[in-house]
């Protein structure tokens, strides 16, 4: 046996106990905080706050709610999703295969669907290396993820521009390239140049693109409630988490924000009566304070709202220009809600694009054996690392 489950069960039991202890939504202090939430005061506090967490900045008011608009008589939804096979460093070749699946769903007088996928092999120097003077930086990890995101956007662009009816482009997951935070400057600039260009093309044609995040773990709005609960402003000081933490560690005070549970925005909008979203409703739009977004032009910076999909509260991310255009935002809201209703809480077009993109385990093995054969045809026996061999030919 490689893992003794009996040795981990007691720790897992404690973990579950801690995770469920904070799920109460009726603590009087927290309920009172929500009921007496003052948008203007909180906005002022947020602007001055020094916190270690991400804070949402509301474009409108923090807890406004919008019912789902109707979809237009004719409209289309385009979704793309990518799957990746990257070579491992124990093999003789460096490459990546990106399979972009797409799904175009047209509704109305001319209902039609288009499903398919297009693979690309990245292996040339330009594909796999970022030149930084004499230095070469490999396109891997976060940079490769952005490369894939750009390919997904480009594929969606080609399909969306063929539509006559109003169209919404959906992407799976976040539109914020979080992975680039903390990366080397040449990597950030290489990745954002492509990503920014892709987003800009959509803006220029006024085609809205939205990222759909199922079961989001973000806490940007809940963190705003911590700022609202903070007692520093009552002492005439701006919110300062660093200072507060030091004083708590010295035993001088208790955190005033401890009344806010250590949960997620998803929980807030699903379970708290004061701000709960009903099926189809969305929250207001919020700016993210992600520093990586500062590299993008203002209209393409990503904002987000929460949507009750009928089965969960999901996070939907759109560029700022979408959120500022009432009609376009209503179209996104209506189409995402319509798509969720068609597929039990998750957009149908994204589900089908994923099905088209997915590279199954047996196909990954086929790629390996295909490479073995291609090497054999040239009379070369490919070498692998001893570590990799030891995993393939396990002996006792």
């Amino acid at each position: 046996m490689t893992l003794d489950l009996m040795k981990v069960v007691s720790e897992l039991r404690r973990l579950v106990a801690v995770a469920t202890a904070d799920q109460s939504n009726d603590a009087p202090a927290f309920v009172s905080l929500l009921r007496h939430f003052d948008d203007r005061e909180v906005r002022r506090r947020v602007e001055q706050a020094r916190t270690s967490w991400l804070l949402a900045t509301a474009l409108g008011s923090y807890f406004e709610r919008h019912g789902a608009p109707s979809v237009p008589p004719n409209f289309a939804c385009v979704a793309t999703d990518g799957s990746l096979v990257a070579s491992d460093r124990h093999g003789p070749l460096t490459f990546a295969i990106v399979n972009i699946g797409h799904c175009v769903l047209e509704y109305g007088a001319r209902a039609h669907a288009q499903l398919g996928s297009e693979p690309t092999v990245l292996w040339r120097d330009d594909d796999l290396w970022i030149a930084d003077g004499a230095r070469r930086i490999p396109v891997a990890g976060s940079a490769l993820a952005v490369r894939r995101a750009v390919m997904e956007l480009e594929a969606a662009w080609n399909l969306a521009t063929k539509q006559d009816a109003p169209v919404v482009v959906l992407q799976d997951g976040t539109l914020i390239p979080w992975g680039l935070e903390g990366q080397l400057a040449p990597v950030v600039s290489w990745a954002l140049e492509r990503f920014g260009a892709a987003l800009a093309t959509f803006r220029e044609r006024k085609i809205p693109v939205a990222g759909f995040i199922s079961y989001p773990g973000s806490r940007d709005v809940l963190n705003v409630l911590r700022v609202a609960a903070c007692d520093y402003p009552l002492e005439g000081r701006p919110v300062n988490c660093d200072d507060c933490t030091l004083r708590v560690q010295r035993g001088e005070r208790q955190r005033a924000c401890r009344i806010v549970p250590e949960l997620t925005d998803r929980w807030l909008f699903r379970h708290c009566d004061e701000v709960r979203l009903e099926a189809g409703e969305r929250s207001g739009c919020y700016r993210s304070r992600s520093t990586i977004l500062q590299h993008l032009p203002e209209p393409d910076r990503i904002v987000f709202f929460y949507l009750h999909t009928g089965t969960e509260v999901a996070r939907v991310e759109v560029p700022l220009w979408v959120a500022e255009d009432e009609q376009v935002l209503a179209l996104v809201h209506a189409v995402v809600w319509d798509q969720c209703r068609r597929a039990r809480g998750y957009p149908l077009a994204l589900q089908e694009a994923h099905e088209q993109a997915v590279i199954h385990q047996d196909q990954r093995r086929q790629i390996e054996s295909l490479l073995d054969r291609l090497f054999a045809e040239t009379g070369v026996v490919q070498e692998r690392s001893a570590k990799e061999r030891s995993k393939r030919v396990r002996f006792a």
Partner: protein
Amino acid sequence: MCASREWSRIGEVVETSTLQFVVECDELDSLPELGSFVRVEGTGVDAVYGIVAFAETGTVDPGRRVVRRGSTDLRDRALYEANPELRFVLRSLFVAVAIAYEAAGRLVYLVPPYPPPLHYSVSPVQGDEIRRLTATHTYLAMLLDFVGPIPCEQLLAAHLLYVYRERRSDRDWLEQAAQEIARLTKRDHDRSRRILLTLETALGPELQT
């Protein structure tokens, strides 16, 4: 004989063997009738003829389950129009049991020397071609021995009903077919009786008109 004829396509071979081939239809639910003849170009022969022995419609990916999409307000044809992707994620398949092949213009009532090639187009057989294929009853033995998801008496009944109609209510042909089946099953009285009873039930109303 028929090499130059244009055959309309209903689907293509997605699984193949000497005994049977599986066909995916071009259009969802556009399946040929149970017991009807289909044709596909063969390897080393001009064509392979089969009889539709089973059909089903399900998901393209066997790992995905079909779930309810409709409601009292959205049903049947309207449901498909409201969900255009269904025509891509679902598919209709049928199994054809090989009963003859054509080589150098001659029909041979044997399994083909090679399985029909994968991805080759499959066409329904119509009109005179059905008369030609059913000029003899010898192939009924192959149908009788075929073991598939459908009981063989059901398959035989479906086939005889189809041929009877296509041959414009050819009663003589039907009587000869019944005699041939009786002869083939004479050593197994129970089976013979079961098959002939099924045929009588299926064909009785046709014969009375």
